[in-house]
């Protein structure tokens, strides 16, 4: 129970550190103790010198408009204001699009979303800057705004060309299929709601360079963009990321703008500059998970086996490309989830709307593809009157089959995982009990119904942009035997630092606290990939291992010669080095000896993911090194009177390969699950008809609380080594568990389906809020949702108007009568007009953009 670390034992004791076997499989998060004391330092906690300037942005209030004039005199005159900059004041590069241009740092002429940066205020305090920013007088000429997927499809407004994946002849398969089902599904976006908002702090250096402290998943990209906007060489900008207060994808590209603004002002005034986004600003001005409106047509045989699928996925990308090309691609890659489509045609559209540019979010489009498949499975089951689990199992991939993009399915344990989970959680018995309970409830007129669902997850691991599948690390061993570790991955709470420290400790077989993990810095490990795509441990862990192996090889070579033994007889074990039977040195003594004999004790390590290739122009290849797998079973109870519900129980069996740190991995699974549950049940991202985000604060955007968990919740790891040669045969675990939450949504759907004796698709929407559940319930009961009574529109308007007039004060926003939902769209029309002509993609089939190696997916 002691927290006293042996690392802080006296020097003499450390030199003869006894074996303690502390490598530890479930080591605590490296910052756990400073987390609970509140002393872990985040960017905004860095003590700033007097004279530090603070920034706030002036935001556009129109979704699509020409800025006719900006009167910033009142802003300049406001208390504490030092400087005000607009587009014309930008010194160098003005576009900070991560992959493709299209994201100006500030609006030049046309604003394309509510909240876009018009100007930046420099002031002596955060509050002064924010207050001043509200004083601008801006004249706009409003332009027609496209705010929905269906409008964008109608007008063929895309941020990137549409893309298609094809295997076999889907059209013929559908035509010949005995059963055909058509459906559509609309998924809303999701706010990241990292608890620490976007923040940057930039300090000018005496050599004209910049030191950038930021909360970013992609330090190298921030480095490069700050360098570009300040016209500095990359080497003059150093980015430091010690930790983030949550990322979830939201700090992959979207952290850069604030660092760039700070960098520009720091150069301009030669003082440290700080900027952070308050919660509401953060929610309005940064991108989110993509909303999708998808449709499918599936052909089945009589048993419910899929013969062919035609799917159309349309993502709402916002005004700029950002990472949307790769995100919609990943939605397309995962629109099969775990199911074999013998013939498939998949179209993916990147809809441009006049809203904030959507971005990476845990799963990166995967969940939106996967939910389409799961929704379709439910649809099939309820149409055919079958148990959804049987439909899922019957359509599961088998080894040797290939996906609709040509990747061969190998080591596919999902059937075993699902069966084991079903056995472990008594799926069959409970299903029977629930069927009976629901019949009884119907007979007795009770309002309660139960639902049960077991759903699988298959998630492809690797960046689909091949370049990014590389990583670097830097390991130093000091002469007291303590080890310093850097790598390209960032710590956002996922426990990456401790996992990689465990790998390094394991390589030398020394105590875990011998290894110090330190901030991710672009001057230590250059040209890093973002910590994204669940790849953090996979690639950085291997790079760190390689660095260790380099040093170890030098020591072995030296020791073999020095002690005149064979290298194979030298063992690193329990803080010691055993030189055959001859001699035993402590690790520190061996390091000392090596140093005295002029052996280099520092090394970089490098890794690139093997086996992967993908030709995007043909939409064919092996984009993923392997698949992460898992399954979850959820039981829910709904109240058919009000639509309220409770999640009663969840069981999860997830495949993390040979887990490096089971506690950390389970933390990822549980956290991902609840986040996914939030997306599918409670979190409702809503814009009004002017393109203004209505759900713009935690008062009206509700992420789950502790009460929402199932009280009965069993999470287990599936015990099996990854067949691929990943680091210690582990599997990536960041994103895949997010999609385990599909089970909760499907269980709600199942409970509603009971009202139609499981013979009708309930058409439950996402997120399944109490309102959505009641709507589906009433549909199943044949009760009209539309109000019979004539609405006195005058009354409504006056109420709404009354609310709106005052709404700016306390967030009680009025909404238009129609919360927009994407309508069905005709895929053929779109398909006929869109081509797959993408010169870039064909010239460089595996690079989505031409910016630089470190630019994101």
């Amino acid at each position, binding site marked *: *129970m002691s*927290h006293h*670390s042996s690392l802080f034992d006296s020097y003499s004791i450390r030199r003869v550190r006894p074996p303690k076997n502390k490598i530890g499989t479930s080591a605590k*998060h490296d*910052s*756990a*103790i400073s*987390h*609970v*004391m*509140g002393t*872990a*330092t985040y960017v905004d906690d860095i003590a700033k010198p007097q004279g530090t300037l603070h920034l706030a942005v002036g935001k556009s209030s129109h979704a699509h408009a020409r800025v006719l004039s900006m009167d910033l005199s009142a802003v300049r005159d406001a208390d504490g204001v030092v400087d005000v900059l607009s587009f014309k004041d930008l010194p160098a590069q003005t576009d900070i699009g991560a992959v493709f241009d299209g994201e100006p740092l500030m609006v030049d002429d046309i604003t394309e979303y509510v909240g876009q940066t018009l100007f930046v205020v420099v002031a002596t305090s955060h509050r002064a800057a924010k*207050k001043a920013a509200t004083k601008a007088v801006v004249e706009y000429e409003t332009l027609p705004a496209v705010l929905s997927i269906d409008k964008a499809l109608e007008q063929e407004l895309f941020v990137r060309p549409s893309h298609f994946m094809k295997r076999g002849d889907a059209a013929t398969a559908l035509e010949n299929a005995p059963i055909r089902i058509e459906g559509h599904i609309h998924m809303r976006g999701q706010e990241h*709601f*990292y*608890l*620490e908002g976007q923040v940057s702090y930039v300090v000018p250096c005496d050599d004209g360079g910049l030191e950038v402290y930021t909360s970013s998943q992609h330090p190298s990209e921030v480095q490069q963009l700050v360098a570009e906007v300040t016209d500095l060489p990359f080497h003059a900008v150093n980015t430091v990321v010690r930790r983030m*207060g*949550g990322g979830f994808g939201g700090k992959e590209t979207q952290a850069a703008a604030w660092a760039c603004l700070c960098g520009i002002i720091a150069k301009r005034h030669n003082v440290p500059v700080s900027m952070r986004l*308050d*919660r509401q600003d953060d929610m309005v001005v940064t991108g989110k998970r993509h909303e999708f409106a998808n449709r499918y047509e599936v052909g089945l045989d009589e048993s419910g086996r899929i013969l062919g699928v035609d799917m159309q996925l349309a993502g709402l990308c916002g005004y700029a490309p950002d990472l949307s090309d790769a995100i919609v691609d990943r939605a397309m890659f995962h629109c099969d989830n775990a199911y074999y489509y013998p013939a498939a045609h998949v179209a993916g559209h990147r809809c441009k709307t006049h809203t904030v540019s959507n971005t990476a979010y845990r799963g990166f489009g995967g969940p939106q593809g996967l939910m389409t498949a799961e929704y379709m499975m439910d649809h099939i089951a309820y149409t055919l009157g079958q148990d959804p689990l049987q439909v899922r199992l019957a359509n599961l991939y088998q080894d040797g089959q290939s996906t609709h993009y040509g990747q061969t399915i190998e080591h596919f344990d999902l059937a075993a995982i699902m069966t084991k989970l079903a056995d472990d959680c008594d799926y069959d018995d409970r299903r029977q009990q629930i069927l009976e309970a629901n019949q009884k409830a119907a007979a007795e007129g009770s309002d309660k119904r139960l639902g049960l669902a077991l759903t699988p997850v298959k998630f492809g691991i690797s960046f689909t942009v091949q370049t990014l599948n590389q990583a670097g690390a830097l390991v130093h061993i000091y002469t007291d035997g303590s080890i310093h570790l850097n790598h390209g991955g960032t710590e956002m709470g996922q*426990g990456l630092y401790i996992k990689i420290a465990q790998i390094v400790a394991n390589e030398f077989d020394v105590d875990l*606290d011998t290894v110090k993990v330190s901030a991710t810095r672009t001057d230590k490990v250059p040209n890093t990939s973002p910590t994204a795509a669940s790849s953090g441990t996979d690639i950085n862990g291997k790079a760190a291992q390689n660095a260790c192996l380099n040093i170890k090889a030098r020591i072995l070579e030296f020791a073999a010669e020095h002690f005149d033994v064979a290298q194979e007889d030298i063992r690193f074990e329990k803080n010691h080095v055993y030189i055959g039977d001859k001699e035993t040195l402590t690790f520190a003594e061996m390091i000392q000896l090596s140093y005295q004999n002029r052996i280099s004790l520092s090394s970089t390590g490098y890794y690139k993911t093997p086996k992967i290739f993908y030709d995007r122009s043909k939409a064919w290849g092996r984009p993923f090194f392997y698949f992460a797998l898992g399954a979850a079973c959820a039981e829910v109870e709904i109240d058919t009177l*009000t*639509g309220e519900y409770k999640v009663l129980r969840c069981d999860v069996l997830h495949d993390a390969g040979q887990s490096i740190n089971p*506690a950390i991995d389970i*933390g990822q699974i*549980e956290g*991902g699950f609840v*986040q996914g549950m939030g997306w599918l049940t*409670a979190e*409702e991202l809503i814009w009004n008809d002017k393109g203004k985000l*209505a*759900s713009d*604060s*935690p*008062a009206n955007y509700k992420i*789950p*609380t*502790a*009460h*929402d*968990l199932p009280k009965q919740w069993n999470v287990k790891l599936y015990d099996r080594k990854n067949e691929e040669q990943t680091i210690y045969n582990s599997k990536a675990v960041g994103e895949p568990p997010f999609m385990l939450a599909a089970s909760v949504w499907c269980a709600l759907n199942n409970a509603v389906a009971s009202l139609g004796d499981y013979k009708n698709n309930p058409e439950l929407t996402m997120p399944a809020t*109490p*309102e959505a559940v*009641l*709507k589906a319930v*009433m549909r199943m009961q044949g009760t009209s*949702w539309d109000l019979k*009574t004539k*609405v006195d529109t005058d009354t409504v308007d006056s*109420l*709404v108007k*009354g609310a709106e007039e005052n709404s700016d*004060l*306390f967030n*009680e926003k*009025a*909404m238009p009568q129609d919360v927009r939902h994407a309508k069905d769209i005709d895929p053929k029309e779109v398909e006929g007009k869109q081509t797959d002509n993408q010169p870039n993609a064909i010239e460089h089939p595996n690079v989505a953009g031409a910016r630089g190696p470190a630019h994101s997916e």
Partner: protein
Amino acid sequence: MISFYLNGKRHELTQLNPNTTVLEYLRLHEGQMDTKEGCGSGDCGACTVMVQRLPNANQSALNDENGDEKNATPPFYTINSCITLVSLMDGHHLMTASYLADNPEHHPERALLHPAQQAMVECHGSQCGFCTPGFVMSLACVYENNRMQTSQETASQNDAKQLSYDEVVASISGNLCRCTGYRPIIEAGLLMSDIGQQREAEQSAVKDLTISLATDAMASTKESIVSEHVPAETKLNNAESKAIAPAISDAGRQLYMPKSLDELNQVLAANPQATIWAGGTDLGLSVTQHLVDHEVIIQLSAVEALKSWSLLDTKSDSSDEGSDNEQAPSQSLVLGAGMSYQQMLPVLEQYFPSFAQVFERIASPQIRNMGTIGGNIANASPIGDLPPILLALDASIHLRHCASNSKESGNDLDNSDSVYTDEIIPLSEFFLDYKKTKLQAGSYVVAIHIPLMHDNQHLFIHKISKRYEDDISACLLAARIDVSVDGMTIEDARLGLGGMAAIPLLATTCQQALIGQAAEVASFEQASQVLSADVTPMTDVRASREYRSHVVQRLLVKCGKQLVAGRQTETA
């Protein structure tokens, strides 16, 4: 001057912008970075800090009147530091996460952690760590109060009561975590009392409960968390109070902290445009979200009379709805407008148990510790949860209008009666329009009068929101159904609606449709059909017009079902 303790050290302030929040004070003035800002609006709990009223500072009239032990150590409670004015800390000890741990060497690996912190570490309860200090404070608070309660109840402190799953969940219901999925945090909450007990078992001496938080196994010379050596001058001299000078001021901005109703009347009469600050759980957002710097603030926290409650005999003329309950007790519960939710809770549990039950769904513990009944009514938000319930309970509101046009010069305490007029009006007449009430400049809410319920009156409250905990009502229905002595006929019905329209209102048409009907579900089904005559709900970010319309009807039916079920199970 305001004075308080921050992490064991005394702070006295006179010159300070009155709009300064506790969080700003901690982070910007004190460089104390262990408290984080997650949302700045009291919704996420990242900024949670723990507070304890200093003993002997301000005597609570609440305790006086109910004969509670005055010597009892005041309980710990949590607040959202982001929206709490620092002036509200006057007379309190404010504690942050780093203070809970003993870390003299300034190295985390060598710190001796509080049981709540230790449990969080052992259960892997932190991932990104940003929300963690807030969770730690919420857990430490429930831990300390539980420990205090156990030691008061039992002579031996060996058997600290184990917290239940539900108690742990309730204690963190105002804290959001986006990383962990909460499971390890709940586990930590369940584990911490074991750790504490183990710690105590390892100690030779049995320590005073509240002090031991700071000294427990910490072997430090740190001042105790309850600073017993608080000098008596924490309370302002009485001589000073006559002048009624601002407690703090800066650059022309002033904050007054009247100590009595008389002082309040005078200060308000002299400053009718002042912002009246009770708990500030809504007003705080004007400072943090809308960047308002209030010029003059009158803070009510020191007016003990506003925090008291009593039972008042009323003449039965108020039973104007033609009921003939001969044995009507004709008593009203009078709740001081300054009572926080948490202070009201035990009172309501006694007199209106079904009202008290809904509290776990109103806001968060942090907000319930600060938010007041008067504030919830006076801010006239259409989504306040108390007004519809109070409407259903036929509550009245006691308003006071203070004016400065009296002949006195304003600071003559003896004639304060002459500077105000009082009125007690039915709450249903108080709300005029969206955010408009009968309150004028210079007015404040003194108290709420709620007639006690008879045996034949039944209160049902239903709240609908996207999230169970800490969410704003899409619809709140509060129904008081009065039945005949035989229980078979509905004699009166009062239906309060919240979240449905620009103001909280009574569904009068629907009420009429219920009165005189049989106390059967069918009557409620029928009456629900005319609800649309009373309210045309709005569509907003929380729910559509359709959902609100359907669900309020269905909730009324649910009330009917509950009424019938209750009659079947109980005899009274």
